[in-house]
């Protein structure tokens, strides 16, 4: 017996007057990017000026179009045609490798000790573990240039803080629930802080704006305080949380 229609993937789900949610996968997997990346390109070509925004995330692509130019029905037919012809693109889906030089230290990473206790590791091992994996960018959100990256070593899958910090400094490198990220700007935040990068993650005056894009590979490279300061890093301390 075939699966019920609603369970079949990919499928198109209504998302307001001006959008369709393309649901491609059930689970988070790096291989998803090989399908989502070419679909983005095909949408850009097929929708042209009628395209307003494309928001890729772990398992989906939200397609937003101009409802004065296209009806939802026309948009749906175009997307169905694109999905019928979609093939994975492993080559270009591997993304750019971005290195984020990171100063791992209790001064700017006040949750290092607690994460180490949680993981049953030394602080040095936590750092080696976090910096020892290349991550993929699955989605941007929360704030401009904030990249959700995974997947973390399972031992570092620490839940987010019960009470978020009202002010997480820009550049903070953090982990929560199996993912890692770096805060592009000062925002409230509930992730566990391990260190800080001097990299400018979002720059309105730079071509492309965001340093990190969906599909990019990211490597955190440990640097010492002197290097961090030379790169322009801010060494202002953050208070620890119980």
């Amino acid at each position, binding site marked *: 017996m075939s699966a019920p229609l*609603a369970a079949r993937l990919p499928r198109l*789900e*209504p*998302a*307001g*007057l*001006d*959008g369709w*949610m393309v*649901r491609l996968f059930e689970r*988070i997997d790096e291989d998803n990017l090989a399908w989502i990346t070419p679909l983005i390109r095909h949408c850009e070509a097929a929708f042209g000026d009628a395209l*307003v*925004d*494309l*928001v*890729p*995330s*772990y*398992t*989906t*692509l*939200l397609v*937003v179009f101009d*409802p*004065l130019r296209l*009806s*939802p029905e026309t948009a749906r037919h175009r997307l169905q045609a694109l999905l019928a012809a979609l093939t994975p693109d492993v080559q270009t889906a591997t993304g750019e490798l971005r290195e984020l030089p990171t100063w791992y230290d209790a001064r700017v990473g006040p949750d290092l000790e607690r994460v180490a206790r949680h993981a049953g590791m030394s602080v040095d091992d936590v750092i080696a573990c976090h910096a020892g994996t290349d991550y993929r960018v699955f*989605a*941007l*959100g*929360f*704030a*401009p*240039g*904030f990249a*959700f990256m995974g997947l973390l070593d399972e031992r570092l899958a620490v839940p987010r803080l019960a009470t978020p910090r009202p002010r997480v400094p820009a550049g903070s490198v953090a982990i929560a629930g199996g993912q890692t990220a770096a805060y592009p*700007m000062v*925002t409230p935040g509930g992730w566990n802080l391990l260190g800080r990068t001097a990299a400018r993650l*979002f720059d*309105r005056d730079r071509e492309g*704006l*965001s340093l990190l*894009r*969906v599909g990019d590979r990211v490597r955190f490279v440990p640097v010492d305080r002197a290097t961090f300061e030379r790169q322009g890093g801010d060494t202002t301390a953050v208070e620890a949380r119980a």
Partner: protein
Amino acid sequence: MSNYTVIGFRVNRAGPLTLLQDAGRYGVRHLGVTQGGAADLHGWAWANRLVGNAWGAPALEVTVGGLELIAERELVVAVAGADLSATLDGEPCAGWRALSLKAGQRLAFAAPVNGLRAYLAVAGGFAATPVLGSVACVVREQLGGFDGRGSKLAEGDRLAVTAEAGRWPAAGAASAPQPPDYAAPAELALLPGAQIGEFSGHSLYQAFNADWQVDTRADRMGVRLTGPRLSCRIGSLISEGIGLGAVQVPPDGQPIALLNDRQTIGGYPRLGALTPLACARLAQCQPGQTVRLTAVAAERALADYRRFRAALG
């Protein structure tokens, strides 16, 4: 249209939240940059229309009042959206029509009488340098506004306008509608979404038949509604893009309608999405006010939206 700008107003008092807004920032949502733009698209568009501006012109969004401006030159302006008991040199000042201000005149917004957000447009538009294609001011993202850094208005600011700011609109440019009664119970049109079948039958009945109260936790990111507790078989989803007006239901069962400054992705199940005009209507509702959700078909919502845009450029 000339590119040069002049100072149109001086800010005597800024009020708690006065923001420059246009139709929003687009094409950058995949970078985590939100949409922004006028929360009440209808009131904003009418303010612009009444002074003869094309769709998209930057106007001030005055939230709950407290703003006092001094005209620095002769200006043609219009106030639409909420009635915030606006006065001109202390005398009541009619909304929803074009007015001429002389240099030195004082335009003030006191407190809400009807609605929450008033829009002040000036002929030719307020002038600011777009950031990522828009002047929409998003404080949280430090983007847009007069300074490009997402700053709300502050006392002492001098607001730039285009050189056409004193130009009276062409005769018959627009006749205003009857100002909406924002205090009346609002019917909010909602396009059902993909997870609607995951809500219990009883919850769905309640969603579309109960009275919902606008909560005090309401801002440009979203408006919480309080009422019967809705139950959904899914607690959370893998985060995905969220559109304007998405009505998400977190595990506490109380819906949140997401507006212009929402985060770009999120992971709660959704009843669906309010139409753009329903979002505009909700943006004028005060805390404690009653709203109802009404399911609409996409064809109907599209026709309404296209009619609105055709009328307002």
